[in-house]
């Protein structure tokens, strides 16, 4: 288990270094766009004195000083498929963001949406040596979790202890210092395809930057789009991206399940392209300008010029009614939502006390989705936009930037992961100094 943490711990150390330097970049490698934000951390005190603004859920600790978006290339289903193309796109975004921030960024926190995430719930329990729970006991109970066979190429992305139980008392956030006999913990472990991580790492290396952290974009969107009571009571965030739709379930402010559906807005575009015999760019434009999912009588009369540049007058002057366009788009959107529903059912979402579902991501901006989604996902559905953070340009406040914003919040306030806790003494090498100290403590 030890080697598994090495890279994560190294990333954590690098993030600390970046925070000390005060500048860090956020990179969202998506299927349709690559977004880069440059954050400056200068502590909440700077703003507190003159304008009396308190720490807004930790957001006042950082400020967005650079933002850039570029059309993504070489990414399919949220995974990098053409490395050179992706590298160039990342370079474009990073350079533009650096130019806006007028500062050089060396550390980057990235998120990726695809790579087949898989969630595991782990449980472990130990008997306490003495009545009080110490850091070492927490480390031991985390180590006692039974880790399933993850598979050869899987890479652990998140491993967060979500719950501690002491004897019969459950739902403890921090059991240290409490008294009991038996300590148990539940942990949420999320793995993704290792190759995807390696590819991303390579791209970022090629851009002369260092990876200071990596997160799942479904998780990041959840952080930014779910409001506090939704995170507390239980809610699902559905991040409808370009190539994949991520979903994450939150409960008691912890992510307890994450998954992704390999369908997204680009599939809708390609459907339009195929159905109307137009280029992908035209299809994308038609989708964003005229698209919808609920047809009305008015839509039959509204004709859309779909154009073309073949030189054939008949071909270039084609029009479709908006109802036809909706007829193409709706089945695909329904398919995506049904797929999401299936995943939620598989995760046991109906057992949560509150079953709020928040749709976010670029594809959630289709007009009429708020009418369609409740039919498939249930009554408690809303379209969510990410939290506002300081200094974010207006163009980057839309739903498509949910995971960027979430990643910024994640950078400012990371949740404790498995590798942030102490290692149990038993796992240290035999000649370790800590082990000697422990032996002395136990014997005197």
């Amino acid at each position, binding site marked *: 288990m030890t080697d598994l943490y090495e890279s994560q711990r190294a990333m954590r150390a690098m993030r600390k270094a970046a925070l000390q330097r005060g500048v860090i970049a956020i990179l969202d490698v998506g299927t349709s766009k690559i977004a880069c934000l440059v954050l400056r951390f200068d502590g909440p005190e700077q703003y507190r004195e003159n304008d009396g603004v308190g720490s807004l859920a930790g957001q006042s600790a950082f400020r967005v000083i650079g933002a850039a978006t570029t059309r993504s290339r070489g990414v399919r289903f949220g995974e990098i498929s053409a490395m050179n193309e992706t590298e*160039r796109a990342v370079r474009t975004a990073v*350079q533009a963001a*650096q130019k806006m921030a007028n500062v*050089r960024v060396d550390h980057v926190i990235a998120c990726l949406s695809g790579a087949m995430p898989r969630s595991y719930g782990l449980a472990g329990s130990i008997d306490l040596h003495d009545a009080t729970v110490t850091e070492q006991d927490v480390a031991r109970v985390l180590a006692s979790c039974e880790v399933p066979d993850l598979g050869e190429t899987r890479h652990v992305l998140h491993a967060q202890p979500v719950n501690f139980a002491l004897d019969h008392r459950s739902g403890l956030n921090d059991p240290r210092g409490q008294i009991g006999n038996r300590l148990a913990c539940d942990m949420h472990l999320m793995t993704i395809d290792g190759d995807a991580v390696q590819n991303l790492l390579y791209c970022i290396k090629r851009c*002369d930057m260092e990876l200071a952290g990596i997160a799942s974009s479904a998780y990041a969107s959840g952080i930014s789009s779910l409001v506090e009571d939704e995170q507390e009571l239980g809610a699902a965030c559905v991040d409808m991206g370009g190539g994949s739709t991520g979903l994450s379930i939150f409960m008691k402010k912890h992510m307890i399940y994450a998954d992704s559906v390999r369908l997204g807005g680009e599939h809708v575009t390609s459907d339009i392209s195929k159905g109307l015999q137009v280029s992908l760019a035209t299809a994308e434009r038609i989708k964003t300008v005229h698209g919808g999912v609920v047809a009305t009588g008015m839509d039959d009369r509204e004709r859309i010029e779909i154009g073309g540049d073949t030189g054939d007058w008949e071909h270039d002057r084609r029009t479709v009614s908006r109802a036809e366009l909706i007829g193409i788009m709706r089945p695909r959107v329904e398919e995506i939502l049904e797929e999401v529903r299936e995943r939620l059912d598989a995760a046991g979402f109906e057992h949560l006390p509150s079953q709020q579902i928040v749709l976010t991501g670029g594809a959630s901006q289709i007009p009429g989705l708020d009418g369609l989604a409740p039919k498939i996902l249930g009554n408690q559905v809303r379209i969510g936009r990410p939290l506002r953070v300081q200094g974010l340009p207006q163009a980057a406040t839309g739903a498509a930037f949910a995971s960027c914003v979430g990643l910024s919040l994640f950078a400012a306030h990371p949740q404790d992961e498995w590798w942030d806790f102490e290692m149990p003494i038993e796992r240290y090498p035999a000649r370790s100094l800590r082990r000697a100290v422990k032996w002395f403590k136990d014997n005197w």
Partner: protein
Amino acid sequence: MRQVDTDSAPARRDPAPSRWAYRLHRLWLTPAVRKFLRLGLPLAVSGLALTWVFAQPQNRSAFTEMYSDIRRSIAERPEFMVQVMAIDGASEELSADIREILPVDFPISSFDLDLEAMQEVVEQLDAVARVDLRIRPGGLLQIDVTERIPAVVWRVQGMLELLDEAGRRVAALYARTDRADLPLIAGLGADREVPEALELIAAAGPIADRMRGVLRVGERRWDVVLDRDQRIMLPETRPVDALEQVIALHQAQELLARDLAAVDMRNPARPTLRMRPHAVEELHRIKGIELGDILQ
């Protein structure tokens, strides 16, 4: 058949920066590099150029020549030339002395006059208490001198010197009669106690017509020397009080008019009179007569 290629528009430019452009941009954003390029490099280049130019001796000498030429052309303008020296507040001999020790060849530029050094030189003259030098418009070097005022004549080792109130030497004196108006002090170390001597002389007002001077004895106490070889020997501490005591005695009993050699006040609690031999004989004779009368 003409081929119409409408859609072979020029290939869309790749918006991505090349690897090197990206690296250079990042390098430019590095604060140290930026500072160096904006400040360090220009400074270094200009410094190198200056060094190279001045490394050649002919350039260096040309530069210094040019500098001195410019300086001279400014300094020698008629506005800055000093023609005359004017000395105020000094006697004839003193101003002659000052002209002698200030070797200035007029006309001279005021840039070349070091007034502070000249002031120091003039102040070294004993007769000068204070001197102010300034260059007045019109090419005039104005020297305002305050002379020391002699307060006493000091006779020591056969020489006569004039001292001011603080005991500083003013000038030598060739004959006592040249300054008969000043009181005389004598003895080694008397110049260090001139204020006390002046107090004594002031206190000796009632016997001023008989006083010849005050004498410092053994560099510790004073004697007031009167004519007819009389002296009043004063103690080391509070000599003025002792002198006043003697003067009071004199005024009451004509003490000093008698045939005394000295009034010894060295121990103020026990004043002692030293009589001359003749007076002693006279006293013995008178005592004998008085005693004889009684015996008879």
